[in-house]
């Protein structure tokens, strides 16, 4: 975490600098199926974060020696666009992105029914187009929806959200300023029934604060889950709507 700067105030009239309550998420927008080539895809805006996830697979594994005979392997590639951050980032993975890719993959893998697809791979690609604290949680949320969009069988969705500590107070879904100058950041991911698949923390929390922060972050995940669910239902309804007219007006389809 960044150094705590005594001159920064994180709250005004009981609200955060962007007007949120302590336990409020940033505006969340999810679009399903926005890419033509990918088997499944999702675009998410979570506050200032703009992230796309794509899923390819199950498909053949190259190189072969990576194959698992009893299950599909899952690969996850978290990547930041060079222009996604204040100071241009050199293209390509760095140590941070390797770690985030690992924990994000481990956040999703528990719910993917990998045993259905032995010897194959499910590839999840996450591109951060604009970063504003919480890109890993945004990425996991998008990836979870993209997996569903690709028709990958899953035990449940995964929803992700962070809790933080700023100016001695716990807050949900910290934005950039809170992340930079706050005292702690704790991203988690979980299933709708509260089983934790990702848990990281850095900063400084007492035993009691950690308890409260976990409850708060889990509440955030539940809110995220509702938005993910709604986006998928909308997409499904829209597909239905697109298919039915065609069936009712076959002559028009031929004209096209």
């Amino acid at each position, binding site marked *: 975490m960044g150094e705590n700067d005594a001159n920064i105030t994180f709250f005004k009239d009981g609200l955060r600098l962007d007007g949120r309550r302590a336990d409020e998420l940033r505006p969340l927008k999810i679009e399903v199926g926005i*890419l*033509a*080539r*990918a088997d499944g895809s999702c675009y998410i805006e979570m506050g*200032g974060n*703009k992230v*796309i*996830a*794509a899923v*390819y697979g199950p*498909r053949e594994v190259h190189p072969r020696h990576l194959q698992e005979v009893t299950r599909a392997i899952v690969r996850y*590639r978290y*990547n930041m*666009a*060079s*222009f*996604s*951050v*204040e*100071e*241009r980032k050199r*293209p*390509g*993975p760095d140590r941070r992105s390797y770690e985030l890719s690992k924990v994000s993959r481990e956040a999703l893998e528990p719910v993917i029914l990998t045993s259905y697809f032995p010897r194959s791979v499910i*590839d999840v*690609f*996450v*591109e951060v*187009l*604009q*970063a504003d604290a919480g890109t890993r949680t945004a990425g996991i949320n998008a990836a979870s929806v993209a997996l569903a969009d690709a028709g990958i069988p899953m035990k449940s969705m995964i929803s992700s959200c962070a809790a933080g500590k700023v100016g001695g107070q716990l807050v949900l879904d910290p934005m950039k300023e809170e992340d930079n100058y706050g005292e702690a950041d704790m991203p988690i991911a979980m299933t709708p029934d509260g089983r934790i698949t990702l848990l990281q923390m850095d900063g400084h929390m007492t035993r009691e604060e950690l308890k409260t922060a976990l409850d708060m972050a889990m509440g955030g995940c539940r809110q995220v889950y509702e938005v993910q669910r709604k986006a998928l239902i909308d997409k499904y309804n829209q597909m239905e709507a697109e298919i039915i007219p065609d069936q009712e007006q076959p002559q028009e389809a031929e004209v096209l």
Partner: protein
Amino acid sequence: MSSVLSEIRKDYLYNMILKGTRADGRYFDQYREISIERGVIAKAEGSARVKLGSSQVLVGIKMQPGEPFPDSPNRGVIITNAELVPLASPTFEPGPPNETGIELARVVDRGVRESKAVDLEALCITPGKQVWIIFIDVHILDDCGNLIDASSLGAIAALLSTKVPASKFGLGEDHPLPIRDLPIATTAIEFGDVVMFDPDSDEESIANSRLTVITTADGSICGLQKSGTGVLNLEKVHHIVDIAGEKAKEIREKFLEV
């Protein structure tokens, strides 16, 4: 694609061509629908998201002060990079840009550079010491063909939306990037003795040759790039260059000068 499937696809497209049309019903010189959204990335000095049919490209511009090249001490520097991230196509692989990505970046770069679209002299801060560095980062999101035209269009659109971030570096007030020309890349492929503009992925996969023509606002040519393992006779080259000029004019007027 397996080679059997690709043979079937090739036959199908070839039969369409014999009938004088393309798989999606376009004329041979017709572009897919284009849409451009500028300023989509607030963290970047400039940005544009281009859709060309189903192809999607995001170009971001970042600027920072840096050292000039020794042989042009009074001019700003342009560095163009293209990332063909595996999210955009089942055929793209993670890792540093391969031949295709490098060629794409270099053709986009050539358009901007050779057209002198950016007034590089105006980007000198202290002669010989400090100039503005412009990073043009092309991020491919969905490869449904003709990435060169989409990326080139994204680059000039993003540059047009770019603010020089002078205040951030204590170098005066922010101001728009000085743009002097509007280069447009137009690409055609040759297959079965027919020339088709703005090829989609299927058309690209069967092409013998591809030719990109970059045109400036005055109708001159500032770049050519042939690729593919086919040949082009002089007549076809002239045909492509002629139509490219018209198409570039239409695109420029419709998307960049309104």
